[in-house]
């Protein structure tokens, strides 16, 4: 624990240092081209880190999930866990979307916005790549596991791994050596994660420094009302998620929150939910969530339980409506929420998906899609909060499902220092 605590501290320091250095670079080289150039060199470190993470993810998801499913044993157990997981996801999604709606209606950040609005006739043309339920469902099943692994297609890997794990379990003794190999593979990948994480503070520093070098901090002031409102809502969402966790997990929630600080900061500073995945998996296991549950809930959550991104969908859509002085009746807002409940599930694996989902929602409800151009100017800063929230939401989802399944053990790596925690089974 000592070591992990240090790493969190380093990451935090790296973040602050990154902001300072970024701000200094931005003030020192006001010429946008020079700033962009400098930022592109700094961000090389972040790129490298994110590539390492992407390199880890496919083998990590696959190996842990095969082992997890094989240990669950039969399709009935898998089905039950799947149902509970989906049940939690749907609840959390509704909560996130509704909170976004409520907060934006209370705070009204779009009214009297001190910013020039894009002409209502302008367009971002993002809506062209709209979601198609038929295609999305067909896309769940990979035509080749290697293509799925090569493309880091999380859902496709999950589908194959479930089949593979169940088949292995059905074969019993015969498949045991293979499961053992995957188990070893999973451990090797976690070891690799540990090594890659040593680079995390550097990556965090570079990520913060490069974004502030190019964008400066002035832009935060320009959009202060919107940014402030969104982050306030996010903090409330964290509170609600943690409260939900508390209802199920009791006092151990505090421990969970402190254990996910590091993946949380990683997701925040790199604006990438993926960056947090390997560390989140490792931390959840240390917390006592059996790997059967984490290996299953986490990759699914990365597709279906992006709480921060979902809250952003309602928040941003209504924000744009407010900016253009369009009043939506409550009924319309509720229809919008239910529609987003479905469309936001297609976000998995779509680049910059929340913007695309918002574009589609705007056109559906006749709100000027041009408003997107306004929020695109600061999406990087908003994405940081969304990604960090996604990490919080998924760790709580995994812990709750584990508790529900009776698979939440006392922390396995507890050294004598932490014996005071109640041992829950």
């Amino acid at each position, binding site marked *: 624990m000592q070591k992990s605590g240090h790493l969190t501290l380093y990451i935090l320091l790296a973040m602050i240092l990154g902001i300072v250095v970024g701000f200094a670079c931005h003030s020192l080289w*006001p*010429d*946008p*081209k020079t*700033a*962009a150039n400098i930022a592109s060199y700094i961000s090389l470190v972040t*790129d490298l880190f*994110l590539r390492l993470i992407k390199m880890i993810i496919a083998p990590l998801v696959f190996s842990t999930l095969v082992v997890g499913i094989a240990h669950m044993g039969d399709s009935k157990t898998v089905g039950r866990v799947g149902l509970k997981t989906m049940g939690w996801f749907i609840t959390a999604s509704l909560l996130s979307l509704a909170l976004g709606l409520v907060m934006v209606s209370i705070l009204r950040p779009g009214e009297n916005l*001190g*910013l*020039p609005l*894009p*002409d*209502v*006739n*302008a*367009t*971002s*043309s*993002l809506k*062209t*790549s709209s979601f198609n339920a038929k295609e999305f469902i067909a896309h769940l099943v990979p035509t080749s596991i290697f293509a799925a692994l090569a493309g880091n297609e999380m859902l496709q890997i999950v589908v194959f791994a479930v089949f593979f794990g169940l088949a292995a379990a059905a074969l019993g003794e015969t498949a045991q050596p293979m499961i053992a190999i995957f188990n070893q593979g999973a451990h090797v990948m976690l070891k690799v994660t540990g090594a890659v994480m040593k680079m995390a503070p550097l990556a965090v520093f570079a990520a913060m420094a490069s974004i502030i070098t*190019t*964008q400066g901090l*002035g*832009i935060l002031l*320009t959009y202060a009302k919107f940014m402030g409102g969104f982050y306030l809502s996010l903090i409330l969402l964290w509170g609600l998620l943690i409260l939900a966790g508390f209802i199920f997990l009791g006092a151990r929630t505090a421990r969970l929150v402190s254990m996910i600080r590091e993946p949380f900061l990683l997701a925040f500073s790199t*604006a*990438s939910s993926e960056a947090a995945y390997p560390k989140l998996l490792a931390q959840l296991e240390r917390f006592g969530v059996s790997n059967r549950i984490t290996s299953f809930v986490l990759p699914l959550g990365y597709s279906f339980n992006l709480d921060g991104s979902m809250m952003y969908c309602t928040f941003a859509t209504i924000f744009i409506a407010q900016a253009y002085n369009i009043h939506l009746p409550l009924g319309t807002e509720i229809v919008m929420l239910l529609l987003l409940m479905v469309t936001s599930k297609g976000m998995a694996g779509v*680049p*910059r998906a929340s*913007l*695309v989902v918002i574009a589609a929602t705007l056109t559906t409800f006749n709100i000027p899609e*041009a408003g997107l*151009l306004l929020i*695109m*100017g*600061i*999406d*990087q800063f908003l994405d940081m909060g969304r990604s960090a929230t996604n990490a919080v939401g998924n760790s709580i989802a995994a812990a709750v499902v584990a508790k529900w399944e009776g698979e939440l053990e006392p922390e396995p790596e507890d050294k004598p220092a932490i014996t005071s925690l109640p041992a829950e089974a």
Partner: protein
Amino acid sequence: VGQTASSTDSVEELSGTLKKIHDSGTVLIGYRESSIPFSYLNSRGEPIGYSIDLGHAIVDGISNELDGQTLKIKFVTSETRIPAVLNGEIDLECGSTTNNVQRQKQVAFSPIMFVAGTKLLVRRDSPIQSFRDLAGKTVVVTEGTTNQEAIKQIADKFAVQMHVVSCKDHAESFEQLVSGKVEAFAGDDVLLRGLLAKSRAPDDFAVVGEFLSYDPYGIMFRKDDPQLAQVVNRVFHEMAQSRELEYTYNRWFLSKLPSGETLNLPMSAQLEEIFRALGAPD
């Protein structure tokens, strides 16, 4: 197996512009004469620019779709862009055309390839950092431009008491700023950079503030032509994923232009997001 089947299918069932191109072996590309750096003539009189490069990429995509048929490009210039596209004089209009809802009723657009907009050009040591600082100051706009409209709207909407003067052309407007008669020049971002690039002391000035208006540009082609639309979208996605869109952008907006000047205009946050949504790696 699947691939062979689908490509034979597509050749058999060609329609719209792709059929026209297949039959004539020629793609008609519309260009502008002096829309730097999007679409303009080089010293040898050939159309070059950012939009023209994207046009070449789309032609390659069409050629692939037509099983590698060799295609000729014929460059066409027209005073009336939209009618020329509608009546078949132009297949791909590669200029600097704003994609907006009214035009979408008549023509189709590629994904957005550039976000232009009104910004302020000021002296580097000027206290003006945004439109809010214009109160009591004099700002120049060029007669008849969308920027003139934008600045008037801003003055009204945000009740900023500024003096707006107008000049006949951009060079004259810029001269007003250089000579110190006005404190700011409101114009299109890319145009201001172009004027700066040609000026004697570009470092004495800076383009500041947020967009005061937004003009998203796209490549224009005929509407209700799903086959062509699909090729155009695919080309943009592939170019985004391979970072070629970014390289092409940098070539025309950050590197030295063939005519010797450098626009020095990094990608806007908006365009970055649009390219990411097309699949550009982070």
